[in-house]
């Protein structure tokens, strides 16, 4: 009887499980991230193809501000640390630290997006518009898509904090935090690639 009760609690706590014994939600998130590799793969390879096509407007090497982007990259990297600390706190059922690290992660993400907005504005002032050259179009599309992903992540983090305060998170709270964490880390690893291929390797 006791074993049955334990088993029931386990199932209720972790939502539906697939025939593999793994959480459907987690399985779905990993499949989604696998498919996102194809999306960003397409955007990155298009940029690689077009980065040298500059008929008018500034060249990549003339406008990139590597020290500034390095700081942005560091901020996003550290947001991955705070996110994993939030997941760790959620698994320990430490609600206070979980909320704290989620908010810090969202703030670091907002700092990164703010930096990207500043970067786009300064590039535009230097003459690189969306339709100036193929380089400009592919650059803004790639980094813009990434920025949108970060922004969606920030919205999810803040929604999670709000729902947690109102005790409205369905199912296993630790798993929900972990799933959003997976998305956040994915956004970080995409930036690891973009930072190297777009900013550090000259055209």
């Amino acid at each position, binding site marked *: 009887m006791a074993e049955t009760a334990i088993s029931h609690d386990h199932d209720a706590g972790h939502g539906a499980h697939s025939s593999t014994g793994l959480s459907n939600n987690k*399985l779905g998130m990993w499949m989604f991230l*696998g498919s996102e590799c194809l999306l960003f793969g397409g955007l990155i*390879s298009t940029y690689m193809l077009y980065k040298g096509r500059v008929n008018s407007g500034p060249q990549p090497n003339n406008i990139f501000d590597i020290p500034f982007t390095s700081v942005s990259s560091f901020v996003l990297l550290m947001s*991955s*640390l705070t996110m994993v600390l939030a997941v*760790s706190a959620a698994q320990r059922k430490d609600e206070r630290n979980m909320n704290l690290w989620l908010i810090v992660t969202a703030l670091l993400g907002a700092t990164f997006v703010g930096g990207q907005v500043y970067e786009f504005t300064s590039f535009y002032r230097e003459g690189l518009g969306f339709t100036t050259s193929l380089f400009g179009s592919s650059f803004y599309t790639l980094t813009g898509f990434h920025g949108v992903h970060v922004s969606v992540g920030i919205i999810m983090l803040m929604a999670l904090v709000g729902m947690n305060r109102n005790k409205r998170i369905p199912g296993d709270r630790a798993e929900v935090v972990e799933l959003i*964490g997976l998305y956040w880390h994915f956004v970080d690893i995409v930036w690891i690639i973009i930072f*190297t291929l777009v900013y*550090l390797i000259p055209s």
Partner: protein
Amino acid sequence: MSTATEHVEHTEGHEAEHHGLSDKQYIYVALILAALTAIEVSTYYIDFGPFFMPTLFILMTVKFVTVVSYFMHLKFDNKLFTYLFYSGLILAICVYCGFLATFKFFLQKG
């Protein structure tokens, strides 16, 4: 008593499934990632000569795998997740390398 023990064992087993590292170890991993980023940025200021591209690609790969393995817990999680994610990644790399090869990207002079 037995139930309580089972519950504790069950909980510990479940946490072991999810917990990859301790908080302190996560901070160490982040420090390593920060150091790798610093080396990456140094390639902009220091001339690495013929080692420039290999250094950047190796650092990028190491950072990528470290975040996926430790922060995303793939190293400690079920192998099926690893297969799902890396199959998407490898498929993307193959498809887009083929795409770039079609446009003779790899024949362009650096």
